């Protein structure tokens, strides 16, 4: 246990060899994770919980940590404290001691404290608290072996005992205990209560810190100065604009290189012709149409497709989309996201955006779910747990599901409408703020102010970056390929049975009359429930003008969440999810209708 962003997940990974995602910003872990640690021939179960500031939960993620603690009252606790901010962590440690949990204190980030000329007397701290105190540097595994050895000696001194030790320490350092006022709370040892008030606990923290921490002269470094400038609006905003430029530039260059340079060739010149020649049954059979190539009718004659994108077979379009287009894009996206996370830039972006996000009922930390959603909406919705109130979670979840396109979707957009991807993204982000602002006005509830903890910039550890990218990419492949395959299969079957045409005919007044897009858009919208990237690729095969295509892509992006996000919203939002759905439908009609109006005013179709 410990505060957010003190290195709990890194310690957990090191102890258990597990692959839990850890990052250099608070709120990375929002659910508990279990793993096994083998120590001296014994298997010990280790649980990683979300960060918490005290034993009174402020948000859902902290609630998870405390429920875990209640469910496992005999568990030995490794309380992880940032050694450079000992006072803040000690409050939680005292809270845990007071509750009678067996405890070991890990003074993590020992190296950072040392760099800042902050010295903590670990031995003295241990003698005062009556629990083992181990200095650690989790990222380099320093001190973790000793931490494992000490875990079985976890102490349960009780708060009164800590008080007595403090008093004793006062006497030992020749401080006269006159009237007991100098050491603790003005109470005699026998009167030290079993449970302290918050003020009493802070008083105790102060006493302990005074006796164990010495702060030497520290010269502000270049890293500190740049850290400061990147959170100040005047200097931080240009820097953020440059970082986002780099992010987008690398993303589009890399995905363009792999997709246009190699994948298009591999799939269109080799894979598609090979399948067209060798697939059993050949053109005209039902299975060939579904699996390889639906083809198209030209001058009354069935003509084979020449590209995988237009063939719409499970083995052609399906594999091309996920392996040829989306995989390179999400891969580079995850690399850059991991670097930004581990460098420590995301919390700075959160501080910069704080004032702006307050206008939509959120605060700076809303940047975390938003950026995670740009990779995949599912972890983004889960990350809304770091927000404190129901109102905030509702607003965040709703605008995430509607307006934030996932990495796969962005990749396909970039492939299908390279010139207009920026416009679509800008229109979606505008919707994010407009409807966030409106929801903030309409939804009752509060938006508490928070104090954000900005970590120091760190050089990312490439091993952790590699592991994080591998985990996220694996998870993408595991989720995407079955859904895309299923989506193409269902849509192809519905097409062949005439169901899509019937649906398109029935919904023509809405599509053609209100949204101004061809009625055939109904087919991709069905597929969008499974995968939005698939739906956008399908849209590209429907004859329409580029303005209609932009409108249709915006519609696919916002009309409904994909299946994974749908279930995550249901899980996280409960009843509120249905409210989100109503908002979603209203927004889809308004925002897409508005875009059509813009085209009409501009005189384009």
């Amino acid at each position, binding site marked *: 246990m410990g505060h957010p962003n003190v290195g709990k997940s890194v310690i957990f990974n090191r102890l258990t060899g597990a692959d839990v995602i850890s990052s250099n910003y608070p709120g990375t872990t929002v659910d508990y994770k279990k793993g096994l640690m083998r120590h001296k021939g014994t298997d010990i179960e280790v649980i990683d919980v979300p960060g918490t500031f005290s034993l009174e939960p402020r948000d859902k993620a902290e609630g998870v940590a405390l429920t875990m603690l209640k469910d496992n009252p005999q568990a030995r606790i490794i309380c992880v404290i940032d050694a450079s901010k000992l006072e803040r962590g000690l409050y939680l440690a005292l809270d845990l001691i007071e509750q009678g949990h067996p405890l070991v204190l890990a003074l993590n980030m020992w190296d950072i404290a040392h760099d800042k000329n902050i010295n903590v007397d670990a031995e003295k701290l241990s003698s005062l608290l009556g629990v083992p105190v181990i200095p650690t540097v989790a990222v380099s595994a320093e001190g973790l072996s000793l931490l494992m050895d000490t875990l079985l000696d976890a102490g349960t001194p009780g708060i009164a005992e800590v008080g007595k030790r403090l008093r004793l320490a006062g006497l030992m350092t020749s401080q006269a205990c006159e009237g007991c006022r100098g050491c603790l709370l003005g109470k005699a040892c026998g009167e030290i209560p079993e449970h302290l008030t918050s003020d009493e606990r802070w008083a105790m923290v102060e006493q302990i810190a005074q006796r164990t921490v010495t702060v030497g002269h520290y*010269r*502000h*470094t*270049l890293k*500190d*100065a*740049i850290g*400061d*400038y990147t959170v100040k609006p005047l*200097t931080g905003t*240009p*820097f953020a*604009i*440059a*970082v986002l*430029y*780099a992010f*987008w*530039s*690398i993303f589009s*260059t*890399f995905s*363009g*290189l792999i997709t*246009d*340079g*190699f994948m298009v*060739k591999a799939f269109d*010149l080799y894979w598609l012709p090979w399948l067209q020649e060798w697939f059993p049954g050949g053109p005209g059979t039902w299975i060939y149409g579904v699996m390889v190539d639906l083809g198209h009718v030209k001058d009354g004659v069935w003509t084979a497709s020449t590209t995988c994108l237009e063939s719409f077979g499970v083995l052609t379009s399906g594999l091309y989309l996920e392996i040829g287009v989306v995989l390179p894009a999400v891969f580079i996206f995850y690399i850059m996201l991991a670097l930004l996370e581990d460098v420590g830039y995301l919390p700075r972006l959160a501080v910069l955006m704080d004032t702006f996000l307050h206008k939509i009922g959120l605060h700076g930390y809303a940047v975390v779910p938003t950026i995670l959603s740009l990779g995949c909406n599912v972890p983004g919705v889960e990350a809304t747990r770091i927000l404190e109130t129901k109102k905030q979670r509702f607003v965040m979840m709703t605008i995430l599901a509607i307006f934030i396109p996932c990495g796969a979707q962005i990749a396909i957009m970039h492939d299908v409408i390279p010139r207009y991807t*920026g416009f679509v993204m800008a229109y979606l982000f505008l919707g994010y703020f407009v409807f966030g602002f409106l929801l903030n006005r309409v939804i009752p509830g509060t938006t508490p102010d928070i104090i954000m903890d900005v970590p120091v910039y760190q050089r990312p550890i490439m091993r952790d970056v590699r592991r994080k990218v591998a985990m996220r990419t694996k998870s993408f492949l595991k989720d995407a390929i079955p859904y895309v395959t299923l989506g193409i299969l269902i849509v192809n079957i519905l097409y062949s049975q005439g169901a899509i045409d019937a649906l398109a005919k029935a919904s023509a007044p809405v599509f053609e009359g209100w949204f101004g897009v061809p009625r055939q858009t109904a087919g991709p919208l069905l597929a969008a429930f499974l995968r939005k990237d698939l739906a956008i690729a399908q849209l590209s095969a429907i004859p329409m003008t580029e303005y209609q295509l932009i409108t249709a892509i915006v519609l696919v992006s916002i009309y409904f969440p994909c299946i994974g996000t749908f279930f995550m919203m249901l899980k996280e939002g409960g009843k509120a999810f249905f409210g989100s759905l109503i908002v979603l439908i209203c927004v889809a009609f308004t925002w897409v209708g508005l875009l059509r109006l813009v085209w009409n005013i501009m005189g384009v179709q």
Partner: protein
Amino acid sequence: MRRVWQGYFAFLGMTVLSCGLLEFLAAAAGHQLTFPFIAFSTGAFRGLWGGLVTIFSGIFLLRGLGDFGEVHRMAKLLMGCILLWIMAATDIFALIAAAVPSIDSGRWFNSGPLFLRALAPPYTPAVILLPFSLPVMLCLRRFGVP
């Protein structure tokens, strides 16, 4: 010596700022500016957004002038260089990415001569100015900034 460094970075800052403004304005007007060795990018993304970043880079470099031993001044100077490096690095990456695959359908990669030809000038202003920003590292060491 301090004056020499200040003069150098003042000149670099002014040049970067001018290039950024030119790039931004040319992109906004939809003009393609090309000289024998320098090509100003067009388009909303590289021209406008990239031009804006180059402008910020120039401003940071100019704001970083002053007391060179002072850590906050040096931080601004370094941030100006970082923004320029971001622009140059993304331009070089895009240049290499365009040079690697062959446009010929029968080949996967460009041959050596074709690859080198694709890397030939003109370059963007950020790429050309990149080497001139590297002395900032020397400057940081020279003035003992921690």
